[in-house]
């Protein structure tokens, strides 16, 4: 060689290949093919100098599993790869991943804007618990992106949304929202839990950070709570003076400047080296292992999740006991065109429907189904059902229930991988009971 290769890089590997191989090579010492579970808290230093280099972040390596662990690293690299991002840091849950993200971005007194259509737990985390840390979240109806522009304040440092929202079959038009974030010079954060990178890759539409609850479709079998933060590597933290956390010397790290030193993986490095180090919501290696194993079949599972969800949604849509179905995969959905644009392989497998019989019919349904599991989760191989008004949203008033898309008549379904006809028969029996 004399220089760069003008032919450019070789063709990229496909999603399926990367879902199985990214981040995980055979073990150089033993040849172990599958990723070992490194069930260890800590790692022996080569010598005192090596230890110092590791503590100063001057070399890559492992100190203590609150910060890094070789099994967790494989999951991190795999997620970064599948999202088309630069780097990732995992956390003990999706909520912990959100905390790491905002702790790294915000100072007390700072603000951010979030979609009003979010997983209920995120609304509580942002609206109530974050408030105690001095962070203010403005909730906005992002189905009209102009609402975001109107809500922006000089103290806003991020925009947060779920591209495919839990629970309601709502798809947001991310491209214009990304343009607003770019104009404002602040990062767009997308929770991609409901879609997974198989159905949608938010970085391709202008997102800067992606967060996941890996608890759901990524781990995929209802085994392991976990979360992840992924950065695109394209956000310029030095474009304005709003991100001193990235561009000014960090007192918690002897004056290290994270953006200058770590460049396009500076954000995740800082989230790990400060937020994860000091608050400690780490992912266990065993949970990482289950999640890695789950991701190896993500593409196959998501195809069937989507296929089954569409069959079930169509059935419910035509059922006399059902008032409405909110699934963006149905042509009648107001979000169908956006789903075709952002989720061409399918609109996920979580959706809601409204029962004509109201609250009592909802309670009767969750108690009558045989095959659907009545529980508070999504993204399992098993089909799941919940009646939000009598469970997760119990404490809300009727008006609040409706605003949250959880009115008394609403049932949320997460369609699993069982035989679709069996699921349909089970629902039919419960609806006509």
């Amino acid at each position, binding site marked *: *060689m*004399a*220089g*760069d*290769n*003008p*032919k*450019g*890089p070789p063709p990229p*590997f496909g999603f399926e*290949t*990367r879902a199985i*191989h*990214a*981040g995980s*090579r*055979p*073990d*150089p*010492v033993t*040849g172990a*093919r599958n990723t070992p579970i490194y069930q260890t808290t800590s790692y022996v230093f080569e010598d005192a100098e*090596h230890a110092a*280099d590791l503590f*100063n*972040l*001057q*070399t*890559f*390596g*492992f100190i203590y599993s609150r910060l*890094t662990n*070789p099994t967790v*690293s*494989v999951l*991190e*690299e795999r997620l*970064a*790869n599948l999202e088309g*991002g*630069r*780097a*990732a*840091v*995992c956390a003990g849950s999706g909520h912990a991943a959100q905390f790491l993200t905002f702790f790294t971005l915000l100072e007390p007194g700072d603000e951010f804007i979030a979609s009003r259509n979010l997983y209920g737990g995120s609304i509580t985390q942002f609206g109530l618990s974050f408030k105690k840390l001095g962070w203010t979240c403005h909730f906005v109806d992002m189905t009209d992106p102009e609402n975001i522009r109107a809500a922006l304040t000089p103290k806003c440092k991020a925009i947060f949304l779920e591209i495919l929202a839990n629970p309601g079959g709502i798809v947001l038009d991310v491209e214009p929202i990304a343009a607003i974030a770019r104009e404002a010079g602040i990062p767009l954060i997308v929770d991609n839990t409901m879609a997974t990178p198989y159905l949608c890759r938010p970085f391709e539409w202008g997102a800067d950070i992606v967060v996941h609850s890996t608890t759901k479709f990524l781990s995929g079998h209802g085994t392991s709570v976990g979360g992840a933060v992924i950065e695109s590597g394209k956000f310029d933290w030095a474009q304005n003076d709003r991100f001193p956390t990235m561009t000014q*010397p960090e007192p918690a790290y*002897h*004056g*290290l*400047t994270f953006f*200058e*030193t770590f*460049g396009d*993986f500076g954000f*995740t*490095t800082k989230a*790990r080296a400060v937020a994860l180090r000091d608050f400690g919501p780490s992912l266990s290696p065993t949970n990482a292992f289950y999640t890695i194993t789950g991701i190896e079949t993500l593409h196959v599972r998501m195809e069937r999740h989507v296929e089954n969800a569409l069959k079930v949604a169509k059935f419910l849509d035509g059922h006399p006991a059902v008032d409405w179905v909110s699934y963006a995969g149905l042509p009648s959905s107001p979000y169908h065109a956006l789903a075709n644009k952002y989720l061409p392989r399918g609109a996920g497998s979580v959706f809601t429907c409204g029962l004509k019989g109201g609250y009592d019919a909802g309670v009767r349904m969750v108690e009558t189904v045989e095959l659907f599991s009545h529980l508070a989760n999504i993204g399992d191989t098993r089909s799941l059902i919940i009646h939000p008004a009598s469970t997760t949203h119990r404490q809300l008033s009727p008006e609040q229930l409706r605003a949250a898309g959880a009115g008394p008549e609403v049932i949320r379904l997460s369609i699993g991988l069982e035989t679709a006809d069996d699921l349909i028969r089970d629902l039919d029996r419960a609806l006509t009971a």
Partner: protein
Amino acid sequence: MHTLHYDDKDIRAILKSVRTIAMVGLSPKWNRPSNFAAKYLQGKGYRVIPVNPGQAGSEILGETAYASLDEVPGPFEMVDIFRSSEAAGPITDRAIALAADKGIQVVWMQLGVRNDAAAERARAAGLHVVMDRCPKIEYGRLFGELGWGGVNSGIISAKRPKMGG
């Protein structure tokens, strides 16, 4: 300007053949990026000679610093440039002039540093040129360490990696 692409096998070959690196713009401050890169490369067995006129005569990471490439005694195979893209031009020209004498084979410009005209001159003189890359990150990426920090190395392989690269 076209997007630079370097084949992994070429970068790997450079990192395997080079042993001594003259690092132009190496800072004596421990928390500067150049110092980070030099310390890491030392840990991987490279000798890193500081070239920094403001530090000439003093020691950085245990090595004597020199004011210019001309003043470095003895051979070095690679020049790693931690300076602006404009400054990389004349530094590259000195590397070309000294290549035969010092055994220089590679001119490497750091992340964010790119000077296509200088690169063309170096290539014409028979030198390998890498621009807008960091040897620390490339080493970590190609020899399996970068992923330890959750960074996407882009490497997909079912081959058993050889220990120590």
